[in-house]
């Protein structure tokens, strides 16, 4: 009740982009702009967020395969063990905990499952807004798959 009139305004901002995710993502909470930039400030965190367009739940290992395929511009079956391990280790030790901190995803340690969090929707809307200027082949690659 301390935020009179504020919470409802987020619904008006909602574009048709988000409508397709409404069914699979948890209800969004208010998110300051700073955590959005923090979440998207590293390529691997952006790629991880792109995968949330495809599904709201991922195993960490599958996610590592997908991100490694994008980074190295190879099909998923051609990702080497070293490439997979490099991405897996950095997701586990750095990027996943940071996105959990920002409320963009949740992470089940026991099953190593990543699920979209309460702030996922705002981050995906921001990614959509950045679509006009993808800054690398990988970004184009990642976006291409998301449109499929």
């Amino acid at each position, binding site marked *: 009740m301390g935020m009179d009139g504020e919470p409802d305004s987020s619904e008006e901002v909602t574009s048709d982009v988000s409508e397709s995710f409404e069914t699979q993502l948890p209800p969004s909470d208010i998110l300051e702009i700073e955590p959005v930039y923090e979440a998207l400030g590293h390529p*691997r965190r952006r790629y991880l967020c792109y995968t949330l367009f495809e599904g709201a739940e991922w195993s960490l290992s599958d996610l590592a395969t997908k991100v490694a395929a994008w980074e190295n511009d190879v099909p998923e079956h051609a990702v080497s063990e070293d490439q997979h391990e490099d991405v897996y280790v*950095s997701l586990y030790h*750095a*990027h996943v905990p940071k996105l959990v901190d920002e409320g963009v995803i949740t992470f089940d340690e026991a099953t190593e499952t990543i699920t979209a969090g309460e702030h996922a929707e705002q981050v995906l809307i921001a990614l959509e807004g950045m679509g006009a200027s993808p800054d690398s082949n990988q970004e184009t690659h990642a976006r291409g798959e998301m449109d499929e």
Partner: protein
Amino acid sequence: MSKRTDDGIVDADDQASGADTHWPQVAQRHYEPDEQGGLTTTIVSAIAEAEGVSPSEVKSPPLYDSVDVPAIEEAFFGPGASGGSRQGVGTVEFRYTDYLVKVRSDGWTQVYEPTEPDLR
């Protein structure tokens, strides 16, 4: 003071933190910014060697609980203001479980394990 060998590796015995605890070096790895594999992989590989496991078996807690490794990677090895590599010299030290980890701007990551001198 650190003693360097010809290939730039710092000797293990330049350690002193804690009055009674000795910190022998148990593993080290070198990070190459231009090669496949990020700084997180370098650090986790060194810790994995110290623990005698594979890098993907180093779990709980994540390094993120100690330091933000991609931020260190950017600070030491990211593109400089002029587009070249950074010239800054420094070391980040942190504790990870029982280990002391040092990440140096020359690319060397070293892992130290505490030993109690009285217990040998």
